[in-house]
């Protein structure tokens, strides 16, 4: 896709950033209203859910209701919620009685580690495969790669995960089935990233164990981004390879490798990077499935468990935090896009 700046778009980066931020504010308010409203209309009573199996006396019920503010008008409840969120207070989990933000921060590194590894695999394989397919357009490599990519793109990843478990864990016995690390290792988290922590402790066997636990979930989560990136890289490359400036580069007597890897790729990467950024939202959805299959203690599993446990506070705040993260990443991608595209950056 040829990237052209719309006429009249303010090219100044700071101005652009401010405008983007101004647009985001109403969206964030909308998101918070949605997260708040979803949970209010969820079937079931939060106080009863909190009380658990023991039940609660009518008097105690009223007291709790007042204590948590459920007796106030709905709009006031919303503003109270918004107020405490702005102070960093996302509420207390009904199930664990711990602050939601603490639970989130404890689980978040697991999801990040999984997602980054998945994305790393996807980019590492997807971009070279896409470039090569484009350069060798119509060859068996191109056809095979695009066939595999479309299959990956069509993959129900929850089934893909189960297949990999059947083969690598069941049949070959190479990889563990669940968790982040073998239970025999007890490491106090430093960064929360298992691969980094085990290295910081210098515990090599623990590192290997963590890596073996990570590899299958990362492959599963990375499958669709990999397919999307390979396809997008190929089509961006094909488009760019037909451009006049690629002909100029060849007319300079540059080697084919330099023409492709410097002149063409630099331009083709602009839409590819946008694509990579847009995968982040999908990655969060994929994390729900992947973490469920591999019992990976991350945000996705936390969310789905909370939905099943009807832990309203967690669902509400989790939704809000995740949506904010996705929005922040999209904003970053927009800025990165402007940064890597000289036609927007420099004026």
């Amino acid at each position: 896709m040829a990237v052209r700046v719309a006429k009249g778009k303010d090219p100044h980066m700071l101005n652009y950033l401010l405008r983007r931020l101004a647009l985001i504010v109403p969206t964030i308010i909308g998101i918070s209203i949605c997260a708040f409203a979803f949970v209010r209309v969820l079937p079931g009573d939060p106080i009863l859910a909190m009380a658990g199996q023991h039940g609660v006396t009518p008097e105690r019920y009223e007291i709790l209701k007042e204590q948590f503010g459920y007796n106030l008008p709905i709009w006031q409840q919303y503003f109270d919620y918004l107020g405490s969120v702005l102070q960093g207070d996302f509420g207390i989990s009904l199930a664990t009685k711990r602050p939601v933000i603490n639970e989130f921060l404890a689980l978040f590194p697991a999801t990040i580690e999984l997602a980054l590894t998945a994305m790393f695999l996807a980019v590492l394989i997807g971009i070279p495969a896409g470039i090569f397919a484009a350069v060798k357009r119509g060859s068996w490599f191109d056809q095979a790669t695009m066939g595999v990519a479309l299959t990956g793109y069509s993959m129900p990843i929850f089934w893909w995960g189960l297949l990999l478990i059947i083969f690598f864990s069941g049949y070959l016995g190479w990889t563990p089935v669940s968790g982040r690390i073998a239970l025999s290792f007890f490491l106090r988290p430093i960064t929360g990233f298992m691969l980094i922590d085990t290295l910081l402790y210098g515990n090599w066997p623990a590192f290997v164990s963590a890596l073996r636990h990570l590899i299958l979930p990362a492959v599963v989560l990375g499958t669709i981004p990999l397919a999307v990136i390979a396809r997008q890289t190929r089509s961006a490359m094909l488009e760019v390879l037909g451009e006049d400036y690629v002909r100029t580069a060849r007319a300079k007597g540059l080697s084919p490798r330099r023409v492709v890897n410097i002149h063409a790729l630099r331009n083709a990467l602009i839409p590819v990077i946008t694509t990579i950024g847009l995968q982040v939202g999908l990655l969060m959805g994929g994390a729900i499935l992947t973490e469920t299959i591999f019992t990976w203690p991350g945000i996705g599993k936390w969310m789905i468990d909370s939905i099943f446990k009807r832990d309203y506070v967690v669902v509400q705040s989790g939704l809000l935090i995740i949506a904010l993260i996705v929005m922040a990443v999209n904003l970053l991608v927009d800025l990165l896009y402007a940064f890597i595209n000289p036609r927007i950056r420099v004026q």
Partner: protein
Amino acid sequence: MAPSTEPVATTSKPASGLREFWYYFSVNRGAVIGLTVFTLLVLMAIFAPWVAPYSPDIQYRDALLKPPIWEAGSDPRFILGTDPVGRDMLSRLIHGARYSLFIGFFVVIGALFVGVILGVLAGYFRGWVDVAIMRVMDIILAFPSLLLALVLVAILGPGLFNAMIAIAIVLQPHFARLVRAAVMAEKNREYVTAAKLSGASHFRLMLITILPNCLGPIIVQATLSFSNAILDAAALGFLGMGAQPPTPEWGTMLATAREFILKAPWVVTFPGLAILITVLAINLIGDGLRDALDPKLKRS
């Protein structure tokens, strides 16, 4: 660079748009394969009760977890084996096609209908209508779609129909954005101005003058959404939030088969394979449609 190499355009007669489309679609081998497989799936779904050897719900208590016939210990009656309660896998898979295609079809219809209306309104009227509609779309798109669908199903209550509504809601912003952009691009073209000058109403301008000219991208998006809807519905079924057992929906079948994955891999393998084949066929068609309908890529 190579001039005068446009054979089709010169030989085409009037009203041959469809033929030209078919020409470009049919040169894409993958698309033709996809269309063939998809047609077979549709036929299989329609005639499921006659095609399937058994009823999907009958439990053969004497044949629990029988493997497919090419494996040792199989039962010749059940080609693809049986599930943990002795139901014929093949029959359940054939009936499952009904659910997946039904879900895909109606979710796309719903998302298309709502998305197109919102997109046309936003693109045609601009101003505060546009701002309001597109802000709401932004909000929906800010949530990861599967997570949003999960929460919506949790609100509406688990089940096939509610899952379909939830998926349609998370898919429709894509239509709205696409249609809005297309309408905005078409709105200032001369033919629209001409229609406006000859006194066409807003309604007529929106639906009869402008919309047909945005059809190409909408069709491609609809195909994409079709496969996404099937995948998402299967995922919801797999997480226990979609169709409920004993419905032979493929995702739901996977969910109930999970505990047997190491003992009886076939109960896991086949439903997923069915999903993959269906989605792959639709995506192949989608690629073919995009190549045939996108004039920019057409002659490259």
